[in-house]
């Protein structure tokens, strides 16, 4: 019998029988969560189901991160609705200011080998720790919260092997943008992506989480990394070393496809409006004036991302025609960036720093674009209207590109200022 992929192993552990890709199975869910954009509907679906309690409230989290703090009374009422339900059921509430669900999940909740369902498409970020995290809608997550189970098809896996040393100015964001540009925004629909190779081994958990996060932008159900020494160190730093476990695909596992990427040949990449797979090399972009630079999100709002930006902006002043918004991914990231002087460096350069959360990326507050405006963002998506205005233009790039762009006022190659 052939060996198993990481996905097949994790799902096998959660459904009481040995599975292989293609099967539809009912699995036990370890962690369920929602955010304030999807949570109110989740709670209403639970009420409609007639189950107004959580199967495991201590493994269920409501994150208030999308409109955070609330900019409108309707959203304040949604927040109150979620707080109230959490109080009544014992569900964990992660209130405004604590930051993005996925990053908090990596810090506090996700464990290697878990199955995690979240009512947010970027729940696949949990794959950075070797957890099978996947995004679902409110009804699915309502069922998972109520019953502790969900149904899923065991995905086939694309093995993405990344080898070589990342050149200066090139980061994990460029690896995943390269992949999405290559296979397109539906190139991995229904599939799991599994990342391996020497470059992946050398990435931090933060770097891996950027790749896991954007796996959904290629349509994938999950983006997985083998838990290793780096994973153990990350969990130890979070005070959770005991949840570490080793887990990997078998040598003879069956992969539907193998994709090789030579990291040494990559350069900083840009996803151009209005689709994430509209990927170009920064050298091909030409002159693009930028009104807003946004550094943050579940994709690139981690301490190391802020460090990259600060190292370029230190001692400089941002371009007078450009505003720079920095939104740390979580309270912990914010605190660490405060303590080590990163926030000071960014603010001295002229950036503004918001409370941690999803920030400008979801189009509801903290940096909504005006008509005709252009944004260079480190976020995972650039769909038309994403940042609250269908008449604006969003380019995506790594944190170094964002910082170089902030100084120049137009999309700029960070290699020239590093």
């Amino acid at each position, binding site marked *: 019998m052939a060996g198993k992929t990481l996905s097949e192993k994790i799902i096998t552990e959660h459904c009481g029988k040995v599975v292989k890709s293609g099967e*539809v199975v*009912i699995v036990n869910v370890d962690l369920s969560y929602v955010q304030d*954009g*999807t949570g*109110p*509907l989740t709670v209403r*679906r639970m009420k*409609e*189901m*007639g*189950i107004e309690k959580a199967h495991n409230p201590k493994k269920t989290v409501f994150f208030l991160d*999308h*409109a955070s703090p609330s900019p*409108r009374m*309707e*959203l304040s*009422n*949604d927040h109150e*609705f979620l707080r109230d339900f959490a109080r009544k059921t014992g569900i964990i509430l992660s209130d405004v200011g604590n930051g993005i669900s996925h990053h908090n999940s990596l810090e506090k909740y996700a464990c290697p080998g878990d199955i995690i369902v*979240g*009512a*947010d*498409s970027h*729940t696949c970020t949990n794959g950075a720790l070797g957890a099978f995290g996947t*995004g*679902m*809608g*409110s*009804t*699915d997550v*309502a*069922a998972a919260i*109520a*019953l502790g*189970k*969900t*149904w899923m*098809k065991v995905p086939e896996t694309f093995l993405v092997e990344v080898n070589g040393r990342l050149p200066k100015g090139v980061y994990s964001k460029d690896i995943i943008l390269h992949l999405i540009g290559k296979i397109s*925004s*539906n190139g991995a*629909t*229904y599939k799991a992506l599994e990342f391996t190779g020497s470059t992946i081994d050398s990435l931090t958990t933060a770097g891996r989480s950027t790749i896991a996060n954007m796996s959904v932008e290629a*349509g994938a*159900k999950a983006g997985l990394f083998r838990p290793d020494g780096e994973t153990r160190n990350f969990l130890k730093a979070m005070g959770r070393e005991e949840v570490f476990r080793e887990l990997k695909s078998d040598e003879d596992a069956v992969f539907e496809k193998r994709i090789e990427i030579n990291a040494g040949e990559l350069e900083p990449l840009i996803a151009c409006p209005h*689709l994430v797979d509209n990927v170009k090399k920064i050298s091909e972009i030409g002159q693009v004036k930028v009104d807003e630079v946004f550094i943050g999100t579940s994709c690139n709002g981690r301490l190391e991302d802020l460090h990259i930006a600060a190292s370029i902006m230190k001692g400089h002043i941002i371009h007078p025609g450009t505003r720079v918004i920095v939104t740390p991914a979580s309270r912990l990231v914010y605190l660490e960036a405060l303590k080590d002087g990163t926030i000071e460096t960014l603010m001295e350069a002229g950036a503004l720093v918001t409370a941690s959360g999803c920030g400008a990326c*979801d*189009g*509801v507050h903290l940096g*909504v674009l005006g008509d005709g405006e252009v944004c260079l963002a480190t976020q995972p*998506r650039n*769909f*038309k*209207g*994403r*940042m*609250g*205005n*269908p008449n604006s233009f969003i380019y995506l790039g790594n944190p170094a590109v964002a910082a170089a762009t902030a100084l120049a006022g137009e999309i700029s190659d960070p290699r020239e200022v590093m």
Partner: protein
Amino acid sequence: MGKAWKFGDSISTDLIAPGRYFHLRSNLPELAKHVLEGARADFAPQVRSGDFVVAGENFGLGSSREHAPTIIKIVGVRAVLAKSFARIFYRNCINIGLPAITCDTDKIDEGDELELDMEKGVVKNKTKGTETTFPPLPAVMNRILQEGGLVAYIKAHKTLEI
């Protein structure tokens, strides 16, 4: 029978249920007034109950927001026909009881009168006198859809065992 509204490829959830109406997510009838506004401004004001959304590849990519298929259903759309769907959107459609049909949509034109037969797996184009078949849904999804969605299923059975 209903009329076909044609859309292109890569219709994201940001076009179906735009983020600028985030505050209307707990007021779905109001949010539904803006359904698909980002892709076609004429759709929401003119769509009629029984009409069809007919699109290209990767319909519904992006966010997990179930509000997107829900407001398509609220305005009375009979089914979404597309060459392919994004995974979460597709699942959401099944869960809320909105048929999402994967089929060749190239031969359907704007305004064609369509009729859907879920049991036989066929879309009849009354305007052109043609038929497009589609494969049956996997058993689990078909069961959920037949019972009116996942909420109705769980309410009735109190379990997910399908």
